[in-house]
């Protein structure tokens, strides 16, 4: 439709600020001002980067979220910034005609296309819990990944496994980094991720032609560098010790902190409390429900979303740290009491072994 430059122009960006943008790009890539012109030229004329968007086991909410993007608009991303050549949820063709596109792009743009993955491959039943074109999805995923330049793991599914990987993970749903091991992968977790975060990650990759800065676990630092709790507007109530104790109580109506009803904001890295959702309208906490930690690994298996303390499965029946630890401490306390009682019963004074000399000199004594 349009080149990147034209899209910017249509959005009211002048030639001047476009050039400024290009020079900024050049500097931040460490290329120096000589490259400004080259970058501008590339953005004005180069073919749009093909993106192949594949779906494994998922719920398509990542796609749904993506099309909610307001800046840039999803239509501008899909039609003008990149070339969405394969996406089974949106594409016109089907069956063999659709599959032919995968092959064509893989050959024509070897090493130059972006693979975006929503969902994940199941490995049980030889992969046949997710079948595409009669074959296990995992095969197609590996094949298409083999010539990709970079890979995007959309959502908690591709990044961590998400709901289908929750215990007992009957299909052995597997995050994509376990099957694509030789390509740079950026994880954009969330269930789903925020629309504008998704499009920002893509536009960043197109603009700077590289993955964004990633944190230790492969998430873009720019959106996943802080916890919900770090920038939550209810934080003053947390600090003050003012909590929603029960749904729809006075604290709830006053917007107190949701910690006691299970908010996982203190342990969840995401941009919800800053970027917010759906063009900044609200975010989970803003509408009265705690964060359920949907951008964190394994958030389904930490016990009830309404409990402050995590369930610990290792101890047989589900229990939390206070129950487990409290029991241990209580057992110790009881043992002490019993022991003290027995001691008092058996003797009133304790002597030492007369024959035995006092061991002096700390650790040095041993071995002598």
């Amino acid at each position, binding site marked *: 439709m349009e080149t990147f430059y034209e899209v910017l122009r249509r959005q009211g960006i002048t030639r001047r600020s476009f050039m400024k943008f290009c020079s900024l790009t050049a500097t931040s890539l460490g290329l120096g001002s000589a490259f400004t012109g080259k970058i501008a030229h590339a953005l004005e004329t180069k073919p749009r980067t093909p993106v192949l968007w594949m779906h494994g*086991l998922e719920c398509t*909410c990542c796609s749904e979220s993506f099309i909610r993007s307001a800046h840039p608009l999803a239509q501008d991303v899909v039609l003008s910034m990149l070339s969405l050549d394969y996406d089974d949820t949106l594409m016109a063709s089907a069956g063999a005609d659709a599959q032919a596109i995968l092959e064509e792009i893989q050959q024509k743009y070897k090493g130059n296309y972006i693979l975006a993955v929503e969902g994940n491959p199941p490995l049980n039943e030889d992969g046949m819990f997710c079948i595409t*074109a009669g074959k296990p999805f995992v095969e197609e995923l590996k094949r298409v990944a083999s010539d990709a330049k970079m890979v995007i793991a959309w959502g908690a599914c591709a990044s961590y496994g998400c709901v289908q990987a929750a215990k007992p993970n009957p299909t052995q749903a597997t995050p994509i980094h376990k099957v694509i091991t030789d390509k740079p992968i950026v994880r954009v977790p969330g269930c789903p991720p925020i629309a504008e975060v998704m499009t920002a990650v893509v536009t960043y990759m197109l603009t700077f032609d590289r993955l964004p800065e990633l944190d230790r676990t492969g998430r873009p630092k720019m959106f996943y560098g802080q916890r919900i709790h770090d920038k939550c507007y209810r934080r003053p109530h947390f600090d003050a010790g003012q909590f929603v104790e029960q749904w729809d109580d006075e604290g709830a*109506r006053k*917007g107190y902190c949701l910690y006691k009803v299970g908010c996982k904001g203190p342990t969840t890295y995401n941009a919800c409390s800053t970027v917010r959702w759906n063009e900044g309208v609200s975010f989970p906490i*803003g509408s009265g*429900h705690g964060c359920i930690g*949907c951008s964190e690994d394994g958030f389904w298996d930490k016990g009830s979303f309404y409990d402050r303390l995590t369930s610990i499965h290792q101890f047989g029946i589900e229990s939390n740290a206070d129950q487990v630890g409290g029991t241990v401490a209580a057992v110790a306390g009881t043992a002490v009491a019993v022991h003290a009682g027995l001691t008092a019963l058996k003797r009133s004074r304790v002597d030492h072994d007369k024959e035995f000399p006092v061991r002096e000199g700390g650790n040095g004594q041993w071995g002598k």
Partner: protein
Amino acid sequence: MSYETQGFKLDDSGKRVVVDPVTRIEGHMRVEVNLDSQNVIRNAVSTGTMWRGLEVILKGRDPRDAWAFTERICGVCTGTHALTSVRAVENALGIQIPENANTIRNIMQLTLQAHDHLVHFYHLHALDWVDVVSALKADPKATAELAQGISSWGMSSTGYFRDLQNRLQKFVESGQLGPFMNGYWGNPAYKLPAEANLMAVAHYLQALDFQKEIVKIHTIFGGKNPHPNWLVGGVPCPINVHDTGAVGAINMERLNLVSSIIDQTIEFIDKVYIPDLLAIASFYKDWLYGGGLSSQCVLSYGDIPDKANDYSAANLMLPRGAITGGDLSRIQEVDLADPEQIQEFVDHSWYTYPDGVKGLHPYDGVTNAKFELGPKLKGTKTNIQEIDEGGKYSWIKAPRWRGHAMEVGPLARYIIGYAQNKAEFKEPVEKVLKTLDVPVTALFSTLGRTAARGLEASWAAHKMRYFMDKLMANIKAGDSSTANVEKWDPKSWPATARGVGFTEAPRGALGHWLTIKDGRIDNYQAIVPTTWNGSPRDAQGQIGAFEASLMNTPLAVANQPLEILRTLHSFDPCLACSTH
């Protein structure tokens, strides 16, 4: 092999055509058909090709969390499973929700209906009727006249369409067709004149921009979309319109925002969606294939309880009932708890039941996955060329109502509403029939299904207004309660309990059944609209709605599955939903 079932003559002797993946749907699906020498479909086999095991995963979990798990069954009909789930838990534990909670839930469910239908029509379905490339040949002036003639919608000047056409021209010339690559452009089954195509492309883009506004209602009440938050016992968003701290709750500003989005939604649907629907339909009214089961067996559970906590048919605004054998004069009562009515079978599905068990009511449902292929399979286990529908062939179970395969969805709801003589469903249907000048039987078709969805989108948008007014009135009357926490604590629950929740999801009747034991989920079963529609065969060889709808349809070009897509899309298949 050939046999008759439900009035269809199945014959698999002709050329086998495989479509895998079926695209522009949610999730993974495959369809195989046999064509006779005239390229008419004489056998149809639809396969759900994914399974995630949510019913297995839900075992042993806290029932209050179930909504979040089941919500992730689908991000397209986002929220409807969550609503169904909290209703099931409330039903099991006897929890009554406040009036405001019911109203807000209805607004959210209607928001989903409006949004999902709109996105389906423009972004998943339109390309079956609209030839994008042909739009290049349109005369912008004539397009503007066409658009202005059917609607007072603003963006319809000659200049607007010319700009758009230029954009499209450049896009096509770039050689990078993106999502439109390898489409069936030029196929003779496309009937729209170039101008109508250009107008539709314009609205494809406008609808893409607009749909993101509708869901903001979910964001206001549920914090985000997709996957807003829900709560057993009510809704998580408190109301505070008078006092300190109102900014942290549903306050006047939030209510105004909801209200203004409702107005915009009504306007977009009534001024863009409905006129487009009628305009497109008018060029296809001779193409009345795809009726499938709709003229025989349709089912609806009903939804949108006007008053809180009353789930009887009389209080439900969407119709409830079942029709079998095409007898529209006899609306049968539906009871989701009756073990004789709803049962699921797995004879042709990749699951096993305990020995000797034939059908199971979902309270006793078993989900035990087992992948095995029939003896006549062409290919291997991991490279299926032609599936054997004589054996197991789908991850979708086969639900039956009193032994019948049923169609569910907007068309089913409208047929039942029509048959019940409910004016709000009957009148708009009659208006459409009259506008298009087609008989009432035209309803039982692919087009009828697509039309019913549009009418329902409009109905839903207007009902949002009704509930918004109701919410305001209730708040004004001094009630701001949004949650009932009496039975929040699991210690207040009985040792065992069971319950069922239902909704009318965008794609049709949705039910969740659960049993609770010692505060944990003991069994959780969902039967989802696409489970009904996408059902494989049963032991008697009865076919499901998808398969039935493809029967006897001629293909204009044998190796282009345009008509197959058209009819399948008219159901808005959701495979993640169907198998869960």
